[in-house]
């Protein structure tokens, strides 16, 4: 037997080895060198404590995120990153030092890949703000604070939008929905800069208050949205828990419905409605309990299930548009009219999963089945969008199957080892009596 030198597995590689092999090594190294030089200059200057304090403050605020209610988040620290270049604050030192601090913390806590990622995410927007103010100064050396900070805000937001466009689809920030967050942070930056320039640092704390309030509102709204979506998700599982349909069906169908809606370029609202209706499209089945001796012996028709589901939703005060979609998806409540495109998406997604289920190998069969019914049971546009979505995202079915599998795996009971936190809760807001 010959002795063979063991090949290091990824787990066995040293952090330096991992960093050397990482695709972000060059930017990390370059920025680290620049930061080291900048920090050295800062330490040698008499402003070193001020620079260090601002860098710490900026790094801390860059770590705090403002949630965008429809997904993703923006760093709260962008307020400070846009305000600092407009003020006599040595922002050229402070901003790189703060980013280096964030990256260093990430490196220690998660690893060099995460550190490189945070540099690539935070670096361009913050440096764009610096660059914009430098450009304004080059044109108008005596420009007041307000135009300087506005230039910084515009550059920062544009750079951040470009950076987030390059993220994978699942992590991408919905830019239109992020506009209110960007506006809030921009106004906050302008107020902080004007307050600091006009009244000193103490007033900057007062000026930051609206941004903090709005962050609180955004966090709560995002948490409430998540909580609602999860509760609807749980509601969609009820027919599955009762054994009326296969476990994981509503979740898998919801994944397909989301992808089809995206392929059809449906807006945020309709897309969300379609996914919600898909999750709930079998809810009416709970009225027909097979274990109930008084229930009808025969399985109910899909139209009966859909109408029953819509009735349950209406009785509980659920949004009417969702109830309507649930009903229309099975051909009900139409009065002779053709079902809407949104209803067609719900129907196609459900039918596709009826064929594919947990068997990824049945994708072609599922596509063939819905294609054969195009123009008849199924809307041609919805079928074409499903074909487009599965072709554009080859692992769509695998993703859907994995989403459904987590529920079928859980049917043996609660796994107490997985209990981390207690999930989202909605906390009452502080109130003032009229």
């Amino acid at each position: 037997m010959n002795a063979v030198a063991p090949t290091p597995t990824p787990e066995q590689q040293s952090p330096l080895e991992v960093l050397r092999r990482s695709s972000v090594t060059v930017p990390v190294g370059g920025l680290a060198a620049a930061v080291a030089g900048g920090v050295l200059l800062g330490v040698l200057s008499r402003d070193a404590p001020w620079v260090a304090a601002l860098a710490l403050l900026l790094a801390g605020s860059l770590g705090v995120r403002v949630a965008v209610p429809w997904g993703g988040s923006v760093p709260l620290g962008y307020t400070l990153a846009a305000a600092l270049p407009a003020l006599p604050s040595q922002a050229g030192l402070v901003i790189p030092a703060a980013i280096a601090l964030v990256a260093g913390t990430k490196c220690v806590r998660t690893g060099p890949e995460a550190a490189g990622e945070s540099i690539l995410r935070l670096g361009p927007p913050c440096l764009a703000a610096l660059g914009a103010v430098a450009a304004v100064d080059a044109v108008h050396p005596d420009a007041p604070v307000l135009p300087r900070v506005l230039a910084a805000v515009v550059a920062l937001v544009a750079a951040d939008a470009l950076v987030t466009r390059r993220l994978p689809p699942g992590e991408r920030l919905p830019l239109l929905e992020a506009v209110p967050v960007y506006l809030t942070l921009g106004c906050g930056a302008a107020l902080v800069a004007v307050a600091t320039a006009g009244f000193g640092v103490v007033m900057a704390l007062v000026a930051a208050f609206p941004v903090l309030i709005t962050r609180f509102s955004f966090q709560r709204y995002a948490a409430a949205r998540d909580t609602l979506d999860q509760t609807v998700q749980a509601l969609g599982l009820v027919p599955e828990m009762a054994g009326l349909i296969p476990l994981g069906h509503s979740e898998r169908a919801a994944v397909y419905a989301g992808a089809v809606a995206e392929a059809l370029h449906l807006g945020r609202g309709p897309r969300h409605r379609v996914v919600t209706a898909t999750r709930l499209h079998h809810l009416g089945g709970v009225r027909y309990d097979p274990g109930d001796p008084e229930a009808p012996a025969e399985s109910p028709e899909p139209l009966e299930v859909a109408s029953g589901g819509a009735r349950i939703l209406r009785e509980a005060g659920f949004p009417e548009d969702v109830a309507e979609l649930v009903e229309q998806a099975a051909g009900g409540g139409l009065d002779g009219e053709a079902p809407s495109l949104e209803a067609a998406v719900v129907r196609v997604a459900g039918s596709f999963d009826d064929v594919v289920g947990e068997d990824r190998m049945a994708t072609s069969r599922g596509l063939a089945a819905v294609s054969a019914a195009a123009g008849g049971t199924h809307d041609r546009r919805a079928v074409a969008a499903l074909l487009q979505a599965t072709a554009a995202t080859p692992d769509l079915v695998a993703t859907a199957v994995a989403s459904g599998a987590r529920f079928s795996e859980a049917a043996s009971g609660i796994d107490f080892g997985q209990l981390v936190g207690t999930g989202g809760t909605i906390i009452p807001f502080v109130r003032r009596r009229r």
Partner: protein
Amino acid sequence: MADLRRLEIGAVAIAASVVVALALAPSRPVAWAWVAAFALIVAVAENSSVLLPTATSVSPSFMAVMACIAILDGDGHELLLSAGLVGAASGLYIEHLKARRFGMVADNCAQFLLASVAAAGVFELVPYRDGVAGLAVALVATAAFGVVNVGLVLPNVALRHGEPLPAVWRDMRAALPNYFAFGLLGLFVGLVCVRVGPVAVPLLAIPMAIGRWTFSSFLRTREAHEATIRLFIRLIEAKDPYTAGHTERVARYALYVGEELGLPPDRQEHLRYSALMHDVGKLAVPSRLLNKPGRLTPSEWEIVRSHNEAGLGILSRIDFMRGMAVTASDRCSHFDRATEGAPADLVLEAQIVAVADAFDAMTSTRSYRRALDQDVAFTELRDKSGTQFNPECVDALIRAIERRDERYGAGYEADVHHFAVPPPVAGVGSAGLGNLLDERSTT
């Protein structure tokens, strides 16, 4: 109501006297254009306040009053009368005017006028504006507004709603930090306006408008969430019709216990959801077993148990439902059983819900047994305290019900069902708790 009327008339009379006194002796001219503009802003802000489910509201009008004071301060115009008139516009709430509640409108205008004059008075009396001294003056002016505002609103609300003053104060004091935050912000905006011009207004108005929109959206989402939870409850009760009203009652008793144990508001909120959803596992149990009159066989019981656990396991994969699934599981509710590493908060929650559930099961009529007397239920809970039930939770529930002087059980049931076959006085059945019954309850 006579006291309330006297209070309202008193406040209005004092406010009117102040206005007359200030108007008769104006030392400086009134900046009517500023007053009109800010009064309009204040009235619009008050009418765009966000209404909360608790019949209270949040509005940014106070901020505009303070901004007006900061702008008029030091520009040579009359300050007290101007601030008072601008503040009075906060009382012009359109819904009250539409409902012809003129007494309330006059009272609100009067109390806001007096509060605004108090804040402006601080600025008139103390000349410091810069540095820490200036900040202190701003804080005192804000506090003056708050003291007058709360001082007048507190007795008014207590009389109008028939609540004791301390209870109203407990409710209001949480909002006091808002006075300082919004007051300082308003003064700051005023100062920035003086320095850089009206361009400062949108810098503040935009984030505040976005904050308002976000908060309204949050409230709408919360309502939709409540509707979804109600839907869950309907499904559970449709599965087991004899337990209609049960979940709401269990939630009420659980909150009694949570309050007695001093749980903070966010945990109370989670406890409420957990109590409402404690029977969610029933959705996975065949109806024929849930509604079977009489005792279940061991094999049937095993089916109920395994289906219930499977249902809870499935729901536990959703973040929001995870805590509720644990609370609903039998594995955490028994006081004398190991809890398999579940978080302590959830174990306590499960034990609270177990006590509330048992109390309601005993004090309501089921298909297999009529409701028991409340005292019998208390005795049973005490007997099982320390073994099946957490003693602290049992004591807390009994204490809370006795303190409220409430009565449940035989003769006091809120939801009475009419069964095809009248239930026996005593019996056991599939909804559990058969082991809690003994000879005492059969009389």
